[in-house]
């Protein structure tokens, strides 16, 4: 007879608190949270982790993780995390940021934290819009994509082109690990988790700045069902933002997980 314990296929990671989600149905922010929590638990670093929450839909990230948290001004999480990590170098510090937060208002902070090779881990949620404020255009919005502030579709002539953050940051010497993954299906979710694990391993080993960009959904503001949103990621986001390893330093390549 099987007991419930050895039949268990799914449970709340220890690094999670018991908080009902505030994210919209089908939003992949929750998936990303879970992956981070699982990695913290597997690496046994929950106790020494300090999170830095962004301004965006993940402003309440601190409600879910059972770790100390601070809440940064919009875009400034990498600077705030720098302050934390520089005085507590033996702690694990991560930021969790959206694309408006990281690639628009906080572009200066992220580029320089990466350039300084700050030993931080950044979880970067690219959902091609400003989710929290109602779906306005982000620097990552696809050409032609309709948002509440590009209602006829993003016109690259007047509204510019998408920013490929992983490609850009990977040119910086201080970056140890920089990859893009997607959360649109189970296989990719597993690959994303492995990347998140590697990013935290990078930090724990002091191998420089680590970032995982995650292509994510925003069904509410995209005006799509959760399933169609996942398809949108696969069919439209991935071609514009190719998945891949943009930088993995030699020392990190040696890490066996």
């Amino acid at each position, binding site marked *: 007879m099987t007991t419930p314990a050895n039949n268990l296929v799914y449970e709340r990671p220890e690094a999670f608190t018991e908080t009902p989600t505030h994210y919209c149905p089908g939003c992949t922010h929750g998936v990303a949270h879970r992956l981070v929590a699982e990695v913290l638990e597997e690496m046994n670093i929950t*106790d*020494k*982790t*300090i999170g*830095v*929450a962004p301004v965006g839909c993940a*402003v309440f990230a*601190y409600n879910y*993780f*059972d*770790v*100390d*948290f*601070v*809440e*940064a*001004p919009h875009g*400034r999480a990498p*600077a*705030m*995390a*720098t*302050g*934390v*990590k*520089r*005085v*507590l170098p033996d*702690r*694990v510090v991560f930021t969790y940021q959206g694309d408006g937060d990281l690639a628009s208002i906080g572009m*200066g*902070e992220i*580029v*320089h934290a990466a350039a*300084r090779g700050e030993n931080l881990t950044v979880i970067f949620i690219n959902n091609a819009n400003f989710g929290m404020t109602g779906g306005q255009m982000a620097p990552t919005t696809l050409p032609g994509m309709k948002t509440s502030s590009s209602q006829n579709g993003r016109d690259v002539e007047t509204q510019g082109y998408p920013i490929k953050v992983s490609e850009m940051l990977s040119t910086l010497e201080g970056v140890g690990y920089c990859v893009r993954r997607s959360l649109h299906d189970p296989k990719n979710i597993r690959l994303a988790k492995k990347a998140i694990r590697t990013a935290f391993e990078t930090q724990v080993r002091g191998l420089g700045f680590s970032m995982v960009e995650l292509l994510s959904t925003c069904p509410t503001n995209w005006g799509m069902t959760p399933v169609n949103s996942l398809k949108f990621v696969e069919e439209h986001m991935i071609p514009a933002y190719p998945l891949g390893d943009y930088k993995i330093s030699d020392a990190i390549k040696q890490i066996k997980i």
Partner: protein
Amino acid sequence: MPKELWKGNEAIAEAAVRAGLEAYFGYPITPQTEVLEYLSRRMPELGRAFVQAESELGAVNMVYGAACTGVRVMSSSSSPGVSLMMEGLSYIAGTEVPAVLVNVMRGGPGLGNIAPAQSDYNQAVHGGGHGDYPRIVLAPASVQEAIDLTVLSFDLAEKYRMITMLILDGAIGQMMEPAEMPEMKPVHRQDFDWATNATMGKRERRLLTSIYLNPLDEEQTNLRLLNRWKEVQANEVRYKEYFIDDAEIVIVGFGTAGRVALSAVRTAREQGIKVGLLRPITVSPFPTERLSQLTGQARAFLVTEMNMGQMLDDVQLTVRGRVPVEFYGRPGGVVPFPDEILNEIKRINSAPTAGHTDARDAWLTRMTAQV
């Protein structure tokens, strides 16, 4: 400790180190840069954190992060850079964490110039960042006082979980004077019950944030800040008085403007004019009570500032028209000479302006005629 010759900016940097500064984050800007330069050498030598940030926005948020862990942290800048820090200051205030910020003020608005000014009094004392929040502001008038107030600023920031700002004009930052440094204090990390320094498996998790989505919670936070501010007002007012006992005319001036006024007061005294000086050291909390007492004694006040009359408003609010308040200012990065203030003292002594004349208007008329 024996007296040594110290440059104001470097003295502040070393005093902070001796007070247990564990982290400094800054960005170059004249006339403050020596603080950053000095600490770029000194902090790593002691194994403490130093980062030249990408901007003042970066710097203030690094300060914010480090402050959340409960260590002694500071930044320094000058007027345009401090403007960029206002977002961070508001968040620090809303999160109720201690931090020290030095503003070595210069002429403005805009890029202005790099000459000494007191142009940011209002920004420091009354405003700056968004939202309802008080902060402590100290105004040294000499290198020695800059050292002493730097040390004090860390204690006050921690005691009241509040931003403490030092505002000094470029002159004090740049000049050299003999001054005595305090003893080197070993770094002592306090075990604050609010610090987010990771649970280490020993306690419940902590959260530091300035978000209170429920207006009733934000209101409670505002009231908590105000109640704490009442304590600051009751316990931390500091000022210095000179020749005040029998003074009939009282000058009110802070920092360099106060110091220049003191020279004028001395000369006027030699000429038999009963004039004294009240020099606020805490411009926030403002020495309102003392000023009110002096209103009963003085027949006129003269406010001297290196701006267009910013503290003037606070003096007028306290004096409330009971006796005439006059103003003499040099804005834009100009430092007044003692003679200019002496002339004002003599003018007021012989024919004080009527109480109903607007002090700033009267000054503007005289200035326009002169310049």
